[in-house]
């Protein structure tokens, strides 16, 4: 299988804390790739470096066969990487629909002049943006709440809305930071189906998740970080038996 994302020797420290130490990993086209590790292992930091929110101290990425420019988040987005956040970051006072419409920013082009004149081109572009956004709300199952403010959605719906917004970008890689956090069993089940569906549609998913059962059931391959270092990278069955991994999770939480 083709490699979609390759990280080489990523380093990142905050003052004295080395959050990422020489992390290298490879994500293949079309797989669900899990990123796990105890709290504070550096998982979110990896996302933040990858998406250009934090500058790396060293190392680099190649994405889809090309070096990835991580100088600014919007460049990473333009390259085809969309993400969600561990602490949900929606546009709280916009409606669910508008949130997803913002996700179409890169796939549309109207500027000030187009907006003011509202010519045929702008009108059809706006209509297409809205149509796609509605489709995505249906896809993640929250179309009923299209006109509700994002901040008024339930926790699980907010997580789904964030995924819909990310999907609106038509990314090549979807990076999800603990999407099941705070969800109940039913919601987690629905989420799992959603992610499997994305994979079936050919999307590559990078998944940080705490729910070990979910990760092990869902992921094709898993990487384990501990204190910023990669301690294992393999298929779930092998990773869960890796002594280093078991030790990192205090002897056996990965059952």
């Amino acid at each position, binding site marked *: 299988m083709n490699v979609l994302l390759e990280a080489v020797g990523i380093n990142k420290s905050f003052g004295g804390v080395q959050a990422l130490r020489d992390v290298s990993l490879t994500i293949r086209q079309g797989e669900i790739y899990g990123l796990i590790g105890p709290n504070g292992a550096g998982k979110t930091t990896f996302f933040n470096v990858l*998406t*250009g*929110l934090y500058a790396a101290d060293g190392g680099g990425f190649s994405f889809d066969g090309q070096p990835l420019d991580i100088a*600014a*988040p*919007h460049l*990473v*987005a*333009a390259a085809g990487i*969309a*993400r969600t*956040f561990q602490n949900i*970051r*929606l*546009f*709280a*006072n*916009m*409606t669910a629909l*508008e949130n997803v*419409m*913002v*996700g*179409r*920013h*890169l796939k*549309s*082009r*109207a*500027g*000030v002049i*187009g*907006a*003011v004149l*509202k010519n045929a081109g*702008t009108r059809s*572009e*706006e209509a297409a*943006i809205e149509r796609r956004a509605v489709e995505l709300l249906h896809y993640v199952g929250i179309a009923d709440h299209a006109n509700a*403010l994002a*901040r*008024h959605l339930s926790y699980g719906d907010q997580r789904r809305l964030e995924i819909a*917004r990310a999907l609106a*970008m038509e990314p090549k890689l979807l990076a999800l930071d603990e999407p099941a956090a705070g969800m109940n069993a039913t919601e987690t089940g629905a989420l799992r189906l959603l992610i499997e569906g994305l994979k079936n549609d050919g999307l590559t998913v990078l998944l940080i998740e705490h729910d070990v059962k979910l990760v092990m059931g869902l992921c094709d391959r898993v990487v384990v970080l501990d204190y910023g270092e990669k301690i294992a990278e393999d298929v779930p069955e092998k990773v869960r038996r890796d002594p280093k991994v078991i030790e990192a999770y205090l002897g056996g939480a990965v059952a």
Partner: protein
Amino acid sequence: MNTHAKPWQGIVLIALVLAALPFAVGLGMGNAWVRVLDFALLYIMLALGLNIVVGFAGLLDLGYIAFYAIGAYLYALLASPHFGLHWPTWAILPLGALVSGLFGILLGAPTLRLRGDYLAIVTLGFGEIVRIFLNNLNSPVNITNGPQGIARIDPISIAGVPLSKPLEFLGLALPGVYLYYYLFVLLALVIIFISLRLEDSRIGRAWVAIREDEVAAKTCGINVRNVKLLAFAMGASFGGVAGGLFAGFQEFVSPESFSLMESVMVLCMVVLGGMGHIPGVILGGLLLAVLPEVLRHGAAPVQKLLFGKVLIDPESLRMLLFGLTLILVMLYRPAGLWPSATRKRELSA
């Protein structure tokens, strides 16, 4: 959008009211009040410009009046005996929008990384710098004529007809304040139209997105730097147009007109009306432009009526009541007098 009534009925009604307003005000209360109306329209344009920066993009700008000043001085320099230039209005106003827009980018660029209080302080500084420049650019080369300001500015003229002189129309002579009123209404409508269109567009959504969560906006692929600069430029260009109109209307400009107090006033209009909500901002501009005048003229007669004599100087009472109004509105309607449905929900939830 108005879907129940036939839209053209609403438009005709509004047009009639706007056309009749100066007559009702002028005949009922005197032409001085039409002049107040003219100023209210300028303030509405300013408030709508600032609304793009503060209301949509969420960038607290305390130096906004600088763009009004730039538009006004541009007009003054290009159409007055000061340099002996007498450019036509139709050339100066678009140029004013452009130059102010460029200054918007210039002053916005260094503030891109700042938010909230810090942004407010830096923009406040910029506003003051512009005013201080205007005050002091009279030596060694006299550009702005310093604190004395620039006088004998050409009145605005349309197709060669200066708006300062009464115009014979259907047998009645329309005074200059009426003519200016109609021009200002027209331009205010253009600015309202542009604001509405921008709000409901890809650009408008990008502005609101960075207001709501800049990090999330970035990861959605929005180039936050460009989008913020665009907000500064658009807002500033409205201010520049209003400034040019102000200069031609007053036929005089001086740095005094562009103090921090004016920036605060425009910000109050935006906040009190309903930040980010265009109808609210228009209402805020109208009320805050008219209210001080009402208080100025009403304070003395009311006191006479109540106490038989004037106890408190109307001028000081005016600011007192004005401040009190602001406090009361913010206490009882924290989202503004006429907030958008969204913001109302935000504050009540």
